[in-house]
């Protein structure tokens, strides 16, 4: 044994301390690995993450109206919100309505209409008639054009627009709004639609999750316990719907569920229901739930199957040997072991279900609409993009909570495909 001790750190052959050298090598490896991922990461950031961020920013963005009425809003801020604003506010408003281009003012007045309905028609009418007014005092002449200019409610409604950002759309997304004093109040009874839709979205998703679990658990169990040559064949039955176009499956369900569809025909033929009161299975919530259950079933079966495959059959045998009844053994031994699969499948189905749009749109009718349908409606039909973005952001936030949960419990890397 040598008694010589090495003084100082261990050196590599070129005289650099081993630790430093190793760290350097590690860093190079890290950079190399990262460089491989970089192209895709950049691609996803640009084509996917930034667009989503853009949507988020749109949900609070109120800059547009500020570019149409910049001066008005400046003098407006000085107003004490009592009675009518000063002549100066009226004057700048008058001038800026005159200056703005037709489509610009149209877009702005649509925005104003969201806070107080009536603004749009008021602006439209005024724009035409203001051309005749040559000089002040503007206040009285504007009120003469339309009485609404003399109504403080309209003026107060502008208060929530003077800032370049607003939470108004988020409030609208949960059936609240700013009143004329910028205090948060509930929407009038007849305009409360979103809370109801949110509840329905959660209800439908939850029901679909429960139904897929009820249908999926037994067949996943069967697949996991059958000999491989049979289970492979049956697995195809699970995978085929997974690979078939969503629209094809929805069409198929429309054939089955419609009033004169296959299901009702069979029931009438069997004499179970009378011809004149066929069941209404489509264009309502029932239709949405039935179709979504079938469409999302593979997403429940596959995670369940991959967990059940790892549960050794000897556990059950042991339990039975020790005198447990089959049901008891299943409940106390098999079930607890399969819980990771239940949570994986359940979360996956729930996450997919809350954002569903196509199926409710086609088979849901009026009653089966989910939040996704309202997002599409505001995106394409009303063009109220602020509200569309706010609804989307809330949905995204809900979804991310569940995604985070999924990642925490199961890990995204463990998503199995086929």
């Amino acid at each position: 044994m040598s008694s010589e001790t090495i003084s100082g750190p261990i050196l590599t052959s070129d005289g650099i301390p081993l630790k430093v050298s190793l760290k350097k090598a590690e860093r190079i490896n890290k950079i190399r690995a990262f460089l491989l991922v970089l192209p895709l990461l950049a691609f996803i950031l640009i084509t996917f993450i930034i667009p989503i961020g853009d949507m988020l920013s749109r949900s609070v963005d109120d800059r547009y109206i500020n570019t149409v009425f910049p001066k008005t809003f400046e003098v407006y801020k000085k107003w004490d919100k009592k009675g009518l604003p000063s002549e100066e506010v009226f004057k700048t408003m008058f001038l800026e309505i005159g200056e703005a281009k037709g489509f610009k003012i149209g877009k702005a007045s649509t925005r104003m209409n969201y806070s107080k309905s009536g603004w749009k028609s008021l602006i439209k009418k005024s724009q035409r008639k203001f051309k005749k007014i040559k000089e002040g005092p503007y206040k009285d002449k504007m009120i003469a054009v339309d009485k609404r200019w003399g109504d403080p409610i309209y003026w107060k409604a502008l208060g929530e627009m003077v800032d370049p950002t607003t939470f108004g759309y988020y409030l609208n997304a949960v059936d609240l709004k700013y009143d004329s004093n910028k205090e948060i109040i509930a929407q009038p009874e007849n305009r409360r639609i979103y809370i109801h839709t949110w509840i329905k979205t959660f209800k439908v998703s939850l029901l679909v999750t429960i139904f897929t679990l009820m249908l999926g658990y037994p067949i996943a169990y069967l697949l996991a316990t059958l000999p491989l040559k049979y289970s492979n064949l049956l697995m195809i039955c699970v995978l085929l719907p997974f690979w078939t176009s969503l629209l094809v499956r929805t069409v198929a369900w429309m054939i089955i569920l419609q009033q004169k569809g296959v299901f009702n025909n069979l029931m009438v033929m069997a004499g179970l229901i009378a011809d004149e009161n066929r069941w209404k299975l489509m264009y309502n919530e029932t239709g949405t739930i039935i179709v979504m259950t079938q469409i999302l079933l593979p997403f429940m079966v596959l995670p369940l199957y991959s967990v059940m495959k790892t549960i050794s059959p000897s556990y059950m045998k042991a339990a039975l040997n020790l005198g447990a009844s089959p049901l008891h053994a299943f409940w106390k031994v098999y079930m607890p072991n399969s819980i990771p699969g239940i949570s994986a499948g359940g979360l996956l189905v729930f996450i997919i279900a809350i954002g569903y749009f196509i199926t409710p749109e086609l088979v849901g009718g009026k009653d089966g609409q989910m939040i996704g349908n309202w997002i599409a409606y505001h995106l394409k039909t009303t063009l109220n993009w602020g509200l569309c973005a706010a609804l989307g952001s809330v949905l995204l936030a809900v979804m991310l909570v569940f995604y985070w949960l999924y990642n925490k419990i199961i890990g995204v890397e463990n998503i199995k495909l086929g």
Partner: protein
Amino acid sequence: MALPVYATTPQRIGYYSFLTYCGLVFFFLVAPIFIVLPLSFSSSPFFEFTREFMTLDPSGWSLKWYKQMVNICGVEVTTVCTDKWMRGTVNSFYIGIVSTFIATGLGTVAALGLSRPHMPFRALIMAILISPMIVPLIITAAGMFFFYSKLGLTHSYTGLILAHTALGTPFVVITVTATLTGFDNNLIRASQSLGGDTMKTFFKVIMPLILPGVISGALFAFITSFDEVVVVLFVGSVEQVTIPRQMWAGLRQEISPVILCMATCLVALSIGLLTTVELLRRRSERLRGIKNR
């Protein structure tokens, strides 16, 4: 699992009712898909089984909807003839194939990086890369509509291809990373010690081993694009009509049985793709020495 010979009567009843239940669930899963097949040969303009059809009366059967689908307009065809189905098919394949190629390239390289032991922030990056698969399509479509319209990419093929590429990459990343688990890194070292450079090692050693994963990822990416309708509806225009978009339009406006013909073709396609992916998966598992799962 099978019933032991000594099973009691209640056990037998339980077992067979369990099997019946499972049978019904499988029926529930598969039957709807096959219901479109016979109906596409019906001469009825509605989605229903007519009496003539059920009694095999020749007048109840017809190929006219197929003719309409491929835009051959006979005399007996009364509804408006359109080339949209054929244009849709071409567009679907065009957008699908281009975006699959880009997604497969980017996804495979990224999966190689993610599978390296030194990858920093793996969990975070993985979560970002998988997110297009998780975020609801309607949100993706809204975001892309807002952002792409600023860049002038809406109503263009480029916009749709970029969108579909983003939607397809998670599948490639997942399948290729799965193939790479259990990949023997000594093979790379062996190749390098024998003088293979990075490129040669990749194409001659890594690629043949991960190819099944790459192909099934590519097929997943393709079917995702081929099947996608929400983004097409919002980012594309009438010009970029695809099969799903045309089916969507068909279901919302003129409910035409041509939809059923197209649906039949799509079912055939999905059976083909499913078979390919299954065969590839088995081959991959054999190659990597994983015995029957």
